């Protein structure tokens, strides 16, 4: 069973989500007794990066139409190359957008938000996230499958193989890109992408005002974490909308989620319950978040967070 994977990149560099998708493809290829072929667009990174995660073959495409994202052009390009039974796509904004069109072009079934390795291959039986993390749906696919892999669900596990690369071309041109990009606004450089972050420090209305986010940012910086917020905080404009996590914001699954001054409303939990470890700091012992947490401190954020910063500094040996 040939397994293909779209190794997503940005500015010529492989994204963590792309590497994770390769690692996932490798894990299932090992069980299926086959190898992984990765498809990469306009990448300057060495293919060694992908061999390390288990891609035996890397198909490299240089194509100016693919410099900007368009769902149709991407789906067409991947469909020309992905001659396998399973195609793995990371569930990034781009991946989740073109995967349905890819499935149509390949005559494959689509399974989105996959979070675990398949349990059987014939049929291809796999679990996916549903009901905003309040349920897990298991589906069985007969025939080809395109799957999108939830970010941070499987982990970018190294599993090195000897690989080779091949430069290939695809028959697409600007006419295939139906959506033209006229401008890009990236968030401040150096900031860690929320969906890819291993650690997320998040705060809610309990912080009282935007002027109090300094300590949240400091803690995040010390931990190499991304920052996030609850919905009301983004709605009032204390924090940018891009940070809002939850059912109507971003769904994330970091290794560690630290929730400070957030009540833990069901809609908030819906976006963060995939986190491996959850820490809650809240002055209300009855806050629902404690029921969903691994570790908690009942206390005032304005007292606890500065202490936490001090202790993390000690751990990291920072003055």
């Amino acid at each position, binding site marked *: 069973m040939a397994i293909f994977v779209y190794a997503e990149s940005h500015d010529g560099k492989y994204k963590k989500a792309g590497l994770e998708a390769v690692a996932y493809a490798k894990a299932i290829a090992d069980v299926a007794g086959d190898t992984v072929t990765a498809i990469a667009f306009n990448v300057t990174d060495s293919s060694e990066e992908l061999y390390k995660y288990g891609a035996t073959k890397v198909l490299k495409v240089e194509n100016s139409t693919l410099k900007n*994202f368009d*769902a*149709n052009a991407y789906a067409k390009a991947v469909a020309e190359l992905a001659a396998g039974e399973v195609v793995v796509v990371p569930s990034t*904004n*781009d991946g*989740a957008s*073109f995967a*349905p*069109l890819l499935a149509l*072009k390949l005559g494959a079934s*689509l*399974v*989105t*938000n996959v979070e675990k390795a398949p349990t059987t291959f014939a049929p291809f039986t796999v679990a996916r996230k549903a*009901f*905003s993390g309040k*349920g*897990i*749906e*298991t*589906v*069985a*696919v*007969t*025939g080809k499958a395109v799957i999108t892999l939830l970010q941070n669900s499987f982990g970018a596990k190294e599993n090195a193989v000897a690989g080779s690369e091949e430069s290939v071309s695809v028959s697409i041109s600007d006419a295939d890109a*139906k*959506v*033209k*990009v*006229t*401008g*890009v*606004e*990236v968030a401040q450089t150096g900031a860690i992408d929320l*969906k*890819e972050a291993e650690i997320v420090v998040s705060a809610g209305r309990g912080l009282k005002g935007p002027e109090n986010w300094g300590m949240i940012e400091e803690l995040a910086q010390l*931990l190499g974490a991304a920052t996030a917020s609850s919905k009301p905080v983004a*709605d009032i404009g204390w924090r940018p*909308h*891009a940070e809002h996590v939850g059912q*109507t914001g971003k769904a994330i699954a970091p290794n*560690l989620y630290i929730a400070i001054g957030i009540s833990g409303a*069901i809609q908030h939990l819906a976006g963060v*319950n995939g986190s*491996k470890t959850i820490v809650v700091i809240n002055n209300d012992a009855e806050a629902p978040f*404690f029921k969903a*947490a*691994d*570790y*908690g*401190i*009942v206390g005032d954020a304005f*007292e*606890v967070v500065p*202490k*936490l910063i001090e*202790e*993390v500094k*000690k*751990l990291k040996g920072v003055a």
Partner: protein
Amino acid sequence: MKILVCISSVPDTTAKINFTGDGKSFDKNGVQFVINPHDEFSLNKAVELQEKAGATVTILTVGDASVDAVMRKALAIGANDGIRIDADARDDFFVATQIAKAAKEGGYDIVLTGKESIDYNGGAVPGLVAGLLDYGFVNGCIGLEVEGSTAKAVREIDGGKENVEVALPAVIAGQKGLVDEAALRIPNMRGIMQARSKQITVVAPEATSTSVEVVGYEKPASRGNVTLVDKDNVAELVRLLHEEAKAI
């Protein structure tokens, strides 16, 4: 300009999710249904375009008669009329096929959807509709204006946003940010009265086949009890995170 807004009727965001005894389907018992929150942003944008640019707004839902209440709410918010495809919305390809057919037959300029539904979380329908119709597709849309036969949109990308242009007809999947949260309309009495007389056309579905079978549903394993650490012993929390959870 004709706009088709696809509305998914989903369990209320606070609903407890349960599955039927055999684990094969979602248990609707005692669950309140609402307009899918992402669709609500798209609906509000459409109504805004109706007021500013004289667009007509038709809503479409795939579902049995039980979705009528949610459709009436969408009509009360300002849509002109509705189409209900009379079938269980059993899989994404089936739903997308119904939407694509209606979109083509009705000659809509914009098909607006939400980026995903909060129940099955597929996020598949908008892209499938675009693919079936061979229209341009903007996902995760947080800004939209129409100029002649072009839509100027802003879409979220990982780590930022992009301004894009797409020729109409197109499929646009909206999310939070497409209109201001504070500007989201709630049905008022006049809207509710008017909605009663707005037309919902019931249409028989197009048959499709699927190669995806639902094996079953389960609930995620719940976490163990929380380990509480005294607020005067924050060092202990850091030790636990470092040594026990190996998270920092």
